[in-house]
């Protein structure tokens, strides 16, 4: 540790003395007043008053030379809030960081990660050059050598086992353009075995929410919480995961006196600032929501008119809710009636109320049930489609929304088009490629059948990232593809974010090749005991490249490059180009994209995205518009996000998708989804007509509800050439548009004409339907509670059993009942849950390598209730073994605290570098080990996958804790 | 002003005096002409010379009890000083930057402190004994006292400057070192070097006579 006290003097330290920016006299009173009043303005959020600060003497004259300071506006790379950053760069060195007071999301504010982001620009603990494992030792290689060897091996595996034996594990850390290229790359290679972290963070949300009302995204925005009259957070701890969002929550809390309700197994820092805290047993989200709704229906608090007009299937939900009387709720969730009642009443009395959830709700075997229950709750209260209401799903990584939208998923192409032949044809048109050629890239066999017919591999969902382990370890007969997985590309993925560490290690050792492309070696580099076949390629960070990035609220922000790539690192899209060239698909892949010095032009990539992403309105966000927004981010309103005056007048910040039509159409973006109080042309929307127009004789279209200024004063189906013709609007299209739109619908019309005309008539291109509270295509149409696979409440298993085992689900056998059948609660009596820390993010390799952050969290720990600690003879600060129900053990420090309830233990999941008590520090390439290492919480976590999306169960398992 | 003098000319001057002085003194001792020993050798001079250089590190058993204080304190002082001089981090850095161009692993801070405490205690006890023991007092010359006090001052100023934050104290230390260096070749401090030829000469002298000394 002694070494750490030395500051990074080599980098920019001597020149770092910062003269005033506008030297020397212009830095002055004026600047001071501007900054300070903005600062105080931020501080005075509650009142909206901007008091004028007093100023001491006029600023001194800067004296030290050191070159001009460039101010670069960019976006934080840590979480989905998307905070603006002003980086000060001097001679190519990142020397300072100033608060972006005029950024509409964060007003200059940061959490510890954002406030420490400059350290990444110095990156002492980075992976510095391409490295491969030779006889158990890391050896430096050149880029060409690495790409050649990797490419050769991939082609060899392709020859032997087929393209599906290479798994393309992408990343939510890529910017939109890189994410898009990555998905396209997998398509060019010919596999659907491509996925990224969204699978294990919000896939159940995306599936649940999209199947309820159309789009799988946060409906409102952080800023829109200003308008909320009540705030409900479940399975969400934004003080640690999205700290800057609290500035918006507090504004509502203080200005609107909005009650804040936190439902969580832990008394989190968020709960400490709440008005109501409901401590539930982990994994009982459906129970508590139905319990609250029981009171709502009992007292008739539901919004009956809203439900009549805009919701399908609420009756079925009501029938289920009936079963959740207060006694049952207390029995299952542990929350007494009066608390449930108070929370329900607070939400009912204070409308609109917003509903915030995160991974506490999603990462369960019934994750999709949870998210749909949340949706049903908001629908019942009529909180959807209104400012201040909505389902505010805080996403995790900075660009997990974008990477999801761009289809880095094994079940869809970019834009949630899915994998049907039509979707492939749409994208091959966008790419300017022959559909048959793409098809030919895939394995020619068939792995599954649908309606008695073989389904082509191209149209078959791939293995999800949560299950890649099984894709390797299962015998090839059990894997529904030609062969099991033989090679993994970990392109920006930390393995410690995934459960079942011991098996994961085994899988890593069974692979023929592991390629890790990341700015940091990640735990993948050290976990397996391998002698060779591992490549580490240094990707540059997002601060060393540029592109667009989608925040949780769907706003797309332009992120500028702050510094050149450090060491020998290369931006991801450059590495992709090099590899594509090696694999022989570069010409097809970059057909519409200019490439200079192996670097594909980001702007061209974005234009290609714009030209194909009609489903979710990623079409209006041209590079020019995004750059314009970045440059003038100060002109956007803090609450509505709308620009008042200025070059982006009328636009919503970042053109939150859908920004319909072409960029020329100038759609301002949609700040709140499904908000009928605005015309569609100004950001209004209806629920999407995605599930047909009627079911069993019931109308699925909206009844008497429509967006402001709509020419159709009722529900309507999605637009297509036929609908336009039927409505007599066909001639509103220009002749060219007619030509392009013939035989197409709003999703596939590349001219955007259908969308333009629909919007011209005040209609949503995707129709106007009801949201469905019952998803008849899912295993549980109405969300029901099912006990976790590893449950301590054996008495409830019979009443709330889990699913039957499935033989082939996303190409893999998936177990449910066979695990739940065994009683583990005797040997493993404590419920284990996991979550985040504010100082670290994701797998933590980046943040644990940041000395300013690492100092604040030096030990991996487990939170234990004093009662459990005393029973086990454990004192605060002791080393303990936490042994998961599948008998993987981690050695961590005990933190005895009442934050967790008795019988529940909590571990943060950002640590890695220790494995089952063994310190792996010496296995890292020299100088690339993070400052802080620790056990990965997920090593001890167990089997369990969502019944729809294969989301991993990492919020509810069982463990035993003993003194080490 | 004074900083420039101490860090510059005076430093080089004292270094020159030290080096030239030591070389000259040693040279004059080694090359001092001596009458040839015409006696018949009863033993080998060479091995005995080498042996004596080392054997004298340990006092004779018979007198250990009488010289416990100088024996123990002497070792404390000399070992401590040696460690300080060559393994204290600031010294290593100084030697690397100003004289040698290469460095070596310095000792940790705690060892540095312990070494200096040993050296201080040893030196104080040795000097006190020199004063209170009648024999030592009588055979001590003013040169011995000056050498001891000067060494003490060098160490003391060094310890004053331990914080490494003050130019004044650093200069004081360096100035005292320079005085010490200038004084060195002309004083009892030369025993640092002369103890070897001196012991060797004795050893050779006895060895030639076949006496096991």
């Amino acid at each position, binding site marked *: 540790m002694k070494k750490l006290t030395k500051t990074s003097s080599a980098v920019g330290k001597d020149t770092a003395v910062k003269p005033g920016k506008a030297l020397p006299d212009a830095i002055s009173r004026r600047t001071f007043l501007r900054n300070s009043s903005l600062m105080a303005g931020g501080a005075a959020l509650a009142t909206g008053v901007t008091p004028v600060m007093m100023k001491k003497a006029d600023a001194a004259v800067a004296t030290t030379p050191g070159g001009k300071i460039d101010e670069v506006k960019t976006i934080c790379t840590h979480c989905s809030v998307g905070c603006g950053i002003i980086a000060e760069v001097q001679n190519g060195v990142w020397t300072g960081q100033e608060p972006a007071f005029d950024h509409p999301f964060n007003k200059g504010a940061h959490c510890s990660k954002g406030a420490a982001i400059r350290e990444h620009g110095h990156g002492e603990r980075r992976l510095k050059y391409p490295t491969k494992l030779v006889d158990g030792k890391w050896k430096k290689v050149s880029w060409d050598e690495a790409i050649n060897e990797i490419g050769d091996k991939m082609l060899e595996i392709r020859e032997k086992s087929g393209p599906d034996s290479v798994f393309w594990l992408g990343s939510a850390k890529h910017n939109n353009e890189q994410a898009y290229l990555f998905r396209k790359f997998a398509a060019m290679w010919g596999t659907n075995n491509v996925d990224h972290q969204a699978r294990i963070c919000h896939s159940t949300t995306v599936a649940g929410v999209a199947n309820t009302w159309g789009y799988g995204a946060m409906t409102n925005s952080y800023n829109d919480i200003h308008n909320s009259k009540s705030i409900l957070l479940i399975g969400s701890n934004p003080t640690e995961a999205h700290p800057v969002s609290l500035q918006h929550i507090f504004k509502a809390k203080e200005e609107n006196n909005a009650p804040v309700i936190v439902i969580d197994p832990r008394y989190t820092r968020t709960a400490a600032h709440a008005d109501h805290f409901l401590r539930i047993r982990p994994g009982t989200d459906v129970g508590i929501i139905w319990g609250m709704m029981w009171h709502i229906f009992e007292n008739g608090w539901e919004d009956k008119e809203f439900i009549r007009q805009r919701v399908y299937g609420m009756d079925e939900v009501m029938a289920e809710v009936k079963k959740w009387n207060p006694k049952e709720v207390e029995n299952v969730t542990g929350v007494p009636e009066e608390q449930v009642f108070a929370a329900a009443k607070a939400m009912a009395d204070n409308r609109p109320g917003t509903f915030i959830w995160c991974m506490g709700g999603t990462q369960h075997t019934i994750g999709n049930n949870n998210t749909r229950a949340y949706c049903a709750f908001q629908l019942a209260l009529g909180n959807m489609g209104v400012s201040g209401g909505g389902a505010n799903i805080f996403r995790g990584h900075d660009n997990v929304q974008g990477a999801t939208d761009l289809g880095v998923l094994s079940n869809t192409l970019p834009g949630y088009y899915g994998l049907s032949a039509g979707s492939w044809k749409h994208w091959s048109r966008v790419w300017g490629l022959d559909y048959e050629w793409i098809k030919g890239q895939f394995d020619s066999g068939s792995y599954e059948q649908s309606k008695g017919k073989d389904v082509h591999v191209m149209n078959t969902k791939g293995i999800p990232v949560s299950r890649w382990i099984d894709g390797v370890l299962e015998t090839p007969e059990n894997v529904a593809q030609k062969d099991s997985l033989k090679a993994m590309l970990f392109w920006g993925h930390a393995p410690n974010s995934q459960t079942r560490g011991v098996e994961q290690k085994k899988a890593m050792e069974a692979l023929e090749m592991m390629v890790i492309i990341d700015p940091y070696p990640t735990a993948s580099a050290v976990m397996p005991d391998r002698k060779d076949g591992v490549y580490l390629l240094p990707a540059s960070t997002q601060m060393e490249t540029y592109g667009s990035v989608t925040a949780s609220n769907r706003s797309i922000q332009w992120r500028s490059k702050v510094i050149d790539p450090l060491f020998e690192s290369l931006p991801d899209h450059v590495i992709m180009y090099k590899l594509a060239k090696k694999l022989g698909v570069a010409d097809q892949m970059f057909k519409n994209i200019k490439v200079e010095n192996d670097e594909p032009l980001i702007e061209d990539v974005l234009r290609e995205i714009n030209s194909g992403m009609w489903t979710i309105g990623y079409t209006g966000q041209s590079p020019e518009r995004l750059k314009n927004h970045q440059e003038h981010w100060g002109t956007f309103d803090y609450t509505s996000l709308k620009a008042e005056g200025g070059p982006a007048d009328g636009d919503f910040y970042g053109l939150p998708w859908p920004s319909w039509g072409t960029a020329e159409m100038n759609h301002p973006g949609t700040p709140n989804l499904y908000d009928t109080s605005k015309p569609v042309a100004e950001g209004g929307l209806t629920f999407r007509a995605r599930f047909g127009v009627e079911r069993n004789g019931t109308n699925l279209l909206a009844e008497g509800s429509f967006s402001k200024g709509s020419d159709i004063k009722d529900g309507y189906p999605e637009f297509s050439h036929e609908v336009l013709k039927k409505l007599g609007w066909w001639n509103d299209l220009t002749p060219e548009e007619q030509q392009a739109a013939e035989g197409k619908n709003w999703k596939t019309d590349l001219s955007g004409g259908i969308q333009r005309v629909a919007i011209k008539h005040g209609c949503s291109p995707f129709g106007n339907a009801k949201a469905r509270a019952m998803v008849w295509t899912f295993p549980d149409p109405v969300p029901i509670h099912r006990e976790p696979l590893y449950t301590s409440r054996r008495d409830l298993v019979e009443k709330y059993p889990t699913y039957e085992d499935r033989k082939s689900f996303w190409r893999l056998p998936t177990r449910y009942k066979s695990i739940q059948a065994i009683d583990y609660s005797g040997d493993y009596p404590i419920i284990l849950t996991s979550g985040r820390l504010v100082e670290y993010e994701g797998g933590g390799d980046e943040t644990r390598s940041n000395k300013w952050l690492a100092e604040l969290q030096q030990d991996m720990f487990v939170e234990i209730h004093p009662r459990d600690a005393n029973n086990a003879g454990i004192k605060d600060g002791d080393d303990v073994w936490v042994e998961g129900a599948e008998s993987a053990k981690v050695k961590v420090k005990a933190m005895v605290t009442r934050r967790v309830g008795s019988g529940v233990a909590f571990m943060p999941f950002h640590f890695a570098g220790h494995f089952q008590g063994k310190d792996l520090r010496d296995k890292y390439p020299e100088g690339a080990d993070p400052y802080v290492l620790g056990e990965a919480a997920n090593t001890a976590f167990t089997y369990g996958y969502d019944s729809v999306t294969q989301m991993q169960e990492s919020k509810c398992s069982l463990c035993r804790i003993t003194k080490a | 002003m004074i900083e420039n003098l101490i860090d510059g000319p005076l430093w080089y001057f004292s270094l020159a005096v030290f080096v030239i002085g030591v070389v000259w003194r040693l040279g004059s001792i080694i090359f001092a002409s001596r009458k040839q020993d015409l006696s018949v050798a009863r033993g080998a001079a060479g091995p005995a010379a080498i042996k004596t250089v080392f054997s004298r590190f340990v006092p004779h058993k018979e007198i250990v009890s009488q010289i416990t204080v100088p024996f123990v304190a002497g070792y404390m002082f000399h070992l401590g000083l040696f460690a300080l001089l060559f393994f204290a981090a600031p010294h290593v850095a100084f030697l690397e930057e100003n004289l040698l161009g290469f460095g070596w692993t310095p000792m940790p801070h705690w060892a540095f402190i312990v070494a200096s*405490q040993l050296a201080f*205690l040893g030196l*104080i006890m040795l000097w006190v004994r020199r004063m209170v023991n009648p024999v030592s007092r009588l055979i001590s010359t003013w040169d011995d006292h000056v050498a001891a006090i000067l060494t003490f001052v060098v160490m003391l100023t060094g310890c004053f400057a331990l914080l490494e934050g003050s130019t004044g*104290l650093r200069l004081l230390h360096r100035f005292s070192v320079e005085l010490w260096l200038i004084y060195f070749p002309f004083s009892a401090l030369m025993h640092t070097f002369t103890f070897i030829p001196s012991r060797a000469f004795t050893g050779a002298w006895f060895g030639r006579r076949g006496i096991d000394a």
Partner: protein
Amino acid sequence: MCLALLPFQVFSQDKKPEPGVFMKDPGSELWRQVRQRDMEGVGISQVRGVDSGVLINARGDQWARFRMTQLSTYGGFAIAGIFAIVILFYVVRGSVPVEGGLSGRMVKRFTDYERVVHWTLAIVFLFLAITGLILLLGRPVLLPLFGKEVFSLMASASKEGHNLFGPLFLVSLIMMLISFVRRNIYEKGDMTWLLKGGGLIGDGHASGGFFNMGEKTWYWMVILIGLVIAVSGLILVSPSLGQGRVIMELSHIVHSIGALVLMTVSVGHMYLGSIGSEGALEGMKTGYVDINWADAHHDRWGKVCHEQDLIISAEEYARSQGQKPGADKMETAEQSK
């Protein structure tokens, strides 16, 4: 002292409170809680460090007030006072001569080793006393004389020197403890010495053994207070051991009070051991004392010397000191006859 953090203070700075709005301040509740709780384990912090979880350490203020108003004031007076008393005493009493003069016949009192231990301890003690006083009283006394820059050098040197010599004090103290402890155990007759005021007050001699009651008491003071000083000093000098501020503050108080007591008394000891009492310094200087001095101050030990015939003649003594018998010492011997 300003706890500007306190909301009610910030609040009170507001000149025009909104009329008609009155509320209980949540902050004051919070702060009451913070301040009334135990010092230990008040809170937690991700920042590691001594007491980083303690929000407010009220003891710090008490310590600061004690140091500034009591310790340095009374300490300064104590040091100045003892010098004044000693000088006054010397002026009034002068050096106390040995009754019947010096005989020139000597008796061995301390070995070389014992004297080395004594003087080593003395040198270390003096050094620590001076550097310690510079730190305690330098700001009011020396800083105005030298100015901040120079005084900072002195103080910095003092601090480093003091820290470095501290452990030496402990080592010499232990040597002192071992080599003198047997002769310093209190015994019968020591009370009479005390009742007679140690012979300084009034006429007539107080009876004493090898060490008299006063010397023994001084010895035990040195050992016991010295150990306290040494241990508290070690606590202070090692801030990285993880001890809290409160412990440091208490250690500092104990350390400085103990040191001031020892310093004050040591001035008396130095006086009595040198110019205050004729023939006393000889013992620590040469190891031999005049038999008449021994009879006068340590009659019981003197008796033993007589009985065991430990007395050496002036000639023998001179020889032991490497002098030619009959040189300057003869004179004294003659006089005493």
